[in-house]
């Protein structure tokens, strides 16, 4: 009952945030509202038992997206222009589509119904087979990394391509001196606390990375948290100092290395006489092999994701400081 209540309240809040996002003009405020929206949906995912998705949504939506969106808003304008005429046609289209979709839901199985068709077919098999064949408690990880390993490979390639695309579009400009905003230099409290928390964030990222088999987490979330730690450091100490820790060149190598580790695991299993990405060949014991394979590919995913996010961030920020801000 309490779960229903929390679920319904969170959905109501989501709806209100959505309306506020549409109505507001200031893009800065809209960005912050988007972050709130993301955090609300992450909480909703926890209530709905999707902890892995919640962790991803919290890290990506509320964290990285907001930072990148703020960087975009800083590069362009902060204010949205008022529309010239009343948007009657879009409103009509939206209301009509919505009404049709709501009519379509009337036949759907009710929320929480254990006999809904979705629960009767493939899913029970995964729940049943995972403990014996994979030996990993987190079924979502086993589905993502082992049963559907090809999909995850595709996903890593997409992320890699996204990174390469941003690299090609935004480019990267090396800067001679550390042109940090001098006002942030004065914020001693922020800088000290950042120094205190930077190692803890990295430690947490490693925990999420290697504990992904047993609890919510995995390579993707860990990569994002890892990148977040560096971005926080860059915000407090300037981009130049972060580049002394992870230079741009290293990031480019990391971006490729992650994908190569993933594909390498696949090829290794082929060389040992199995199929592509058949982990149980990797060790004498099939379950150990699965563990090893999942750990290695999650590592590959984590490395690529962290590198791509940092590359996108470097690209945005190096562009931002170069050009003097135009007067508005």
């Amino acid at each position, binding site marked *: 009952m309490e779960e*229903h209540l929390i*679920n319904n309240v969170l959905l109501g809040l*989501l709806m209100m945030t*959505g*309306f506020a*996002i*549409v109505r507001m003009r200031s*893009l800065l405020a809209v*960005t912050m509202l988007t972050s709130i*929206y*993301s955090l609300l*949906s992450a909480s909703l995912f926890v209530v*709905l*038992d*999707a*902890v892995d*998705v919640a962790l*991803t949504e919290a890290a*990506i*939506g509320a964290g*990285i*997206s907001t930072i990148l969106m703020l960087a*975009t808003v800083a590069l362009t304008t902060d204010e*949205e222009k008022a*529309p010239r005429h009343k948007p009657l046609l*879009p409103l009509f*289209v*939206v209301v009509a589509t*919505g009404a049709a979709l*709501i009519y379509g*839901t009337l036949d*759907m*199985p*009710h*929320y*929480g*119904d*254990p006999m809904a068709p*979705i*629960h009767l077919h493939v*899913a029970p098999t*995964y*729940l049943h087979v995972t*403990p014996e064949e994979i030996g990993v*408690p*987190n*079924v*979502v990880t086993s*589905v*993502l990394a082992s049963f559907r390993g090809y999909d*995850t490979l595709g*996903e890593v390639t*997409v*992320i890699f391509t*996204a*990174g390469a695309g*941003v690299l090609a579009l935004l480019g990267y400009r090396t800067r001679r001196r550390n042109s940090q905003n001098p006002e942030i230099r004065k914020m001693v409290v922020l800088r000290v606390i950042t120094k205190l928390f930077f190692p803890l964030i990295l430690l947490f990222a490693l925990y999420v990375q290697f504990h992904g088999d047993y609890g*919510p987490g995995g390579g*993707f979330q860990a990569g994002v948290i890892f990148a977040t730690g560096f971005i926080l450091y860059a915000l407090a100490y300037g981009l130049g100092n972060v580049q002394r820790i992870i230079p741009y060149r290293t990031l480019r190598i990391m971006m490729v290395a992650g994908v190569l580790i993933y594909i390498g695991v696949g090829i290794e299993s082929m060389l040992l006489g199995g199929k592509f990405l058949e982990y149980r060949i990797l060790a004498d014991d099939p379950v150990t092999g699965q563990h090893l394979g999942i750990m290695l590919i999650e590592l590959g995913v984590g490395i690529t*994701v962290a590198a791509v996010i940092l590359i996108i961030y470097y690209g945005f920020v190096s562009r931002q400081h170069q050009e003097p801000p135009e007067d508005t």
Partner: protein
Amino acid sequence: MHDVMHGVLGLYNYWIVIILMMTGFYTVIARPNLVKKIIGLFIFQTSVFILFISMAKIEGGTAPIISEGARIYSNPLVKALASTPIRYPTS
């Protein structure tokens, strides 16, 4: 009366999802600003995840991490499906 209440509560998630979806859709088609359009897509996308995950929930179930003492697990496959595309908006 009880039946109507039950039906409304059972479909409430899907209706909110549709409202959110339409909010995002409206932002995409009615607002000229590109940042706003992207945020509209973001709202739309999140609403699709909520739709998926609402369908995956089983009354009284727990997160699909095998542990002692838990009997019913919510659908893991849908979660895996939902956590694959969630990663694309990074780009």
